[in-house]
Structure formats: C-alpha cells, structure tokens
C-alpha cells in the first residue's frame, strides 16, 4: 500500500515538474514550506536539548512562515544587503512569490540604504535583477530603488511612479507601499504638498502612511476639504513612522481648519521694480508650489512692463541705439518665459492658474511642445523596433516605458484637454510594440501594463477600446 502511495506521489511530482499538471506557484510554495517545516521540527526534536529546541522551533517558524517581518525588523536595519537578498530567495515570502528574484533585490536595496550606497553592492544587485526571469511590479520597484541609490532621481521617480499606478495584479501591496512612500518623501521634502495629496488619494489602493501624509498635506495647504483635529489624530496614530512624522503633524495641527484660502493681495505696487521683487520672491518660494502666487507675480511684471516703454526708448537713444523698445520688450518677455518654464516642467501643477494669453500660458506651451517631442521620439523608437523586431533587456525596456509614461502623465497634468491627442499619438506604436513584446518576447507583464494604460485613455475610441480590452484579457491569462 505504502509503495503504491509512494509511486503515486512520485508520478504527481514528475508531472508537476514537467508542467503537465498546473499548480499555482503559491500552492507549491506552501506545500514546500509545510514539508520543510515538518522536516526541520522533526530534526530539531531528534537532536537538540529542550531550551535550544524551543529557540530553534521559533527560528524555523519565523524563517519559514514569517520571513517578511524578519527582513523588515532585523535584516534591513542591520544593514545586510546580501543577507536580505538571500533570505528572500531562500525563505520565499508568500506575498512576493511571483517575482522572488526582484523582491530579493528590493530588500537588498533597502538594506543598503542605511549603510550608504556602495558601488560594488549596487552593481551586484543590478546583475541579480538583470538575471531575473520575470519582471513585474517588484522588478520595477527594484530598478527604481537602484536608480535612486545611484542618485538618478529622475529615473527613480519615473520607475516608482509607474510601479505605483500599476494594476494590483502586477504588483504586491508591500511593493506598492515602498514605491509610493518614496514618491511621497520625494515630494514632501521640497514642499510639493499638492503632489503628496494626489499620491495619498490614489484611487487604486490606499496605503496607511501615504494616506495620512495626504491628510496632513491638506491641512498644511489650507485645503477646504482638510480634516479636523479629531479626525486627523486617529489617522496619524494608525499610520507607521509616527515618531519621524510627529513634528510635521504638529505643524499641520497649527494650521486652522477650513479657513478660507487666504490669497495674498495681488501685488499692488504698480512700479515695475517692485513687481520684479514680487516675482523674485515667488520664484524663491516656488518650492512651496504656490501656482497662484507665481501666476499673479508673472502677470504683474508683464502688466507693468508696458509702462516702461518710454523709459526704454529714452535709454536706447542715450546709448546711441536706433532700435525701438519693442525688441527689448519681446526679449524681456522671452526671458520671463525662460525663467518660469523649468519650474512648470518640474511641477506641471504650478501652471493650473495660468490665464489664457498670459506669459505663464506661453511657458506652458513651451513645456507642452517639449513633452510632445519626447513622446513622439519614444513612439518613433517603438515603431522602428517593432518593425525591426529588436528589444532591449527587460530592465531597460521598463525604463523606456516609465519615461514615456511620465512624459504623457505630465503632459496631461499640464493640459487635460490633450488626452485624445496624446492617445492618437501613442496608440498605434505602443499597442503594436506591446503585441510584439507579448507574442514575440513573452514579456507578458510589460505588455499587459501597456495595454491597461492605453485602455484607460481609449474611452472615446470604441474600436481601440475593444481591441485593448481583448489584449488585457489575454494578458491576464498569461500572468
């Protein structure tokens, strides 16, 4: 009887390994863990004395059933990147089973943070990530963290933002939290509270710390929807990182609730020099991301500039020039646009108060043109590579996609009316490239993310919507 059972078990194992019986990875991992746990306990009981026995029991329990707390509370704070990597690889945390190599790199990178980035370890982790068989959300988070450790903040921002907006099917909750928390800190450290609020209010998944930070941000910016103290306190207490966040929380409590938004009085000085002073001040505090203040200051300079025409003509005459004041005024306005453009490029939200025909709007058009150029270049690259059937390695491909994504999202933040234009631009090249990645390269997760993203903006094109919905379904089957 026993021999027959043994033969059946061997047949089942052989069929699972050959792929003819499909078992979800998570079921296999649980099975393996149960087996390992029983085996370890049996070995411990057979060999160790009583006290050591209990300790070994606990260690075996944690390593096999709860490796994530062990990683977070012990291995990462102890600054052991390679140990963190191998702990994930060996212990197989159940929530990260789909992309175990990438998740191992994420914990390796996190353990490297308090230690201070070392080139050698970053390169080692990068090699491990490149060798990963699949790359979904955890892989993108890993690539983002490694870029951040290399101080390539733009690339890190693009990758982590891509990970944060991914469908829950592609990214575990813990990995999304790592990505979003980094983005929240990246915005909060320069006082971009509007971005913190948008990140925290994210529709896909709510995460405790980013949600609490968004509520704090609302109070700090005097948002009319800001919560009162009694609502804010439980939210703060429920979120992690309370000790570090407490001073900021106190700062938020000091801001009166639901006060009317106090806009500075429009710069009343009609004198040009004072208007320039106001502009300098607005640029200086642009990190407070006060778009209305910036728009009003630029408008005041622009308005007062025309009153300088006579003075400019006099000065040109005194200096022996025959040119008229118009050329100086045009150049001045161009300088003004050049001064504001990089700020809008960094934070499109600053342009929300731009009035039609204003200098700010001209700066918006410059940024818009540049972003359109970026998107077009990337689309051309996708078109060429689809035709030539050439692909980059998986990490580089996700980086390119994150870059296109972030350009498109910034463009839509700047001008939400451009949605259909952007969709028309990206639809064919991205969809065809995604099909090539799906069918030709079996990079299902990357293609799936592209289809989902396109589908979100395809609402006004029924044929495209149908095709994309079908492609998304095909992706779900493959993930």
């Amino acid at each position, binding site marked *: 009887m026993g021999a027959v059972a043994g033969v059946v078990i061997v047949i089942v194992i052989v069929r699972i390994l050959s792929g003819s019986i499909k078992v979800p990875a998570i079921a296999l991992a649980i099975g393996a863990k149960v087996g390992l746990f029983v085996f370890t306990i049996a070995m411990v009981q057979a060999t160790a004395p009583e006290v050591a026995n209990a300790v070994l029991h606990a260690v075996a329990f944690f390593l096999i059933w709860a490796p994530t707390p062990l990683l977070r509370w012990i291995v990462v704070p102890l600054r052991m990147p390679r140990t963190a990597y191998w702990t994930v690889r060996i212990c197989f945390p159940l929530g990260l089973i789909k992309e175990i190599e990438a998740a191992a790199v994420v914990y390796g990178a996190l353990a490297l943070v308090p230690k201070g980035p070392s080139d050698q370890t970053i390169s080692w982790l990068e090699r491990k990530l490149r060798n990963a068989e699949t790359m979904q959300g955890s892989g993108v988070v890993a690539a983002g963290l490694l870029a951040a450790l290399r101080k390539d903040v733009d690339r890190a921002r693009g990758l982590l933002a891509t990970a944060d907006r991914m469908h829950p099917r592609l990214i575990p909750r813990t990995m999304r939290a790592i990505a979003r928390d980094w983005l929240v800190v990246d915005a909060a450290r320069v006082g971009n509270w509007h971005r913190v609020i948008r990140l925290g209010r994210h529709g896909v998944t709510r995460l405790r710390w980013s949600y609490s930070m968004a509520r704090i941000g609302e109070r700090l910016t005097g948002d009319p929807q800001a919560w009162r103290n009694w609502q804010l306190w439980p939210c703060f207490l429920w979120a992690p990182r309370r000790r570090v966040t407490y001073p900021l929380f106190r700062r*938020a409590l000091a801001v009166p609730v639901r006060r009317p938004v106090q806009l500075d009085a429009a710069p009343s000085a009609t004198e040009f020099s004072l208007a320039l002073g106001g502009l300098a001040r607005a640029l200086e505090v642009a990190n407070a991301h006060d778009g209305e203040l910036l728009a009003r200051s630029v408008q005041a300079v622009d308005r007062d500039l025309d009153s300088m025409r006579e003075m400019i003509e006099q000065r040109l005459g005194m200096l022996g020039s025959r040119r008229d004041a118009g050329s100086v005024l045009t150049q001045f306005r161009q300088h003004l646009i050049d*001064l504001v453009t990089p700020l809008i490029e960094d934070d499109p939200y600053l342009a929300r108060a731009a009035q039609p025909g204003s200098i700010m709007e001209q700066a918006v058009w410059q940024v818009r043109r540049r972003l359109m150029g970026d998107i077009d270049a990337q689309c051309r690259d996708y078109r060429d590579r689809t035709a030539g059937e050439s692909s980059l390695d998986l990490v580089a491909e996700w980086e390119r996609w994150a870059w296109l994504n972030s350009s498109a999202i910034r463009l839509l933040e700047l001008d939400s009316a451009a949605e259909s234009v952007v969709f028309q631009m990206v639809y064919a090249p991205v969809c065809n490239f995604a099909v090539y990645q799906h069918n030709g390269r079996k990079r299902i997760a990357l293609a799936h993310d592209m289809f989902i993203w396109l589908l979100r903006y395809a609402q006004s094109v029924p044929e495209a919507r149908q095709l994309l919905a079908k492609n998304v379904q095909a992706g779900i089957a493959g993930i």
Partner: protein
Amino acid sequence: MTTGDPLALWRSNPFFVLEVATDATPTDVERAGQRLLALLTVGSANVQTYPTPLGPATRDAEQIRQALAALRDPEQRVLHELWASVIPAGGQASANGNAGPWEEAERALGWSALWAR
C-alpha cells in the same frame, strides 16, 4: 521636482556680476570689469563671490568677460537694466508659511543624504 535654484540666472545679471549701478557709464563698466579680472588673476578670494539683491552668487573670469560683452551692446544693456532694477520684496510671500518643505522627510525612509541636491 525643483532642486535647482530658479534665481541663478537672474543673479548672473551683468550689472550684479560687475557690481556696477544701472546708470554707470560705459567707462565705469569697463574699468570695473578690468579691475575684477585683475583681482581674479592674482587669486583674491573675496572677488569670487558678489552680493546681489537676490542673495550672494559666485563668478569667474568667463562670466566677467560675458558681462562686459553684454553691456557693450545697447539693446542688451537696456534689457539687463530692466532685470537689475529689482527691488526685493520683504515679508511672507506664500499664502501659508507652514506649507514649506519638510526638512526631515528623508529621515522618514532612512534615506538621509541620498537624494541628489
């Protein structure tokens, strides 16, 4: 995200770089430029930084030469006169002083000093 200095370009206004008034004569401008170049050549430490109404800035010989060239062109000079006429605004510019940057943000993740400045 803004990490660069948005006023850097403004601080490099030729009048600020040469430390001359906007009504200075062309001779005064040339003299100021040559004096600064000479001081830079002998390695005077004080000459590398200069005050502006928008805060201090640093200069080198190339910037001084560019400033001199810009002020020799009447149209460019008038343009720079306009920018140099700024009177710094005092007081609180933002609607809410509490909404500034969160200095300890990086500590929340344990990422202190890892963000590129």
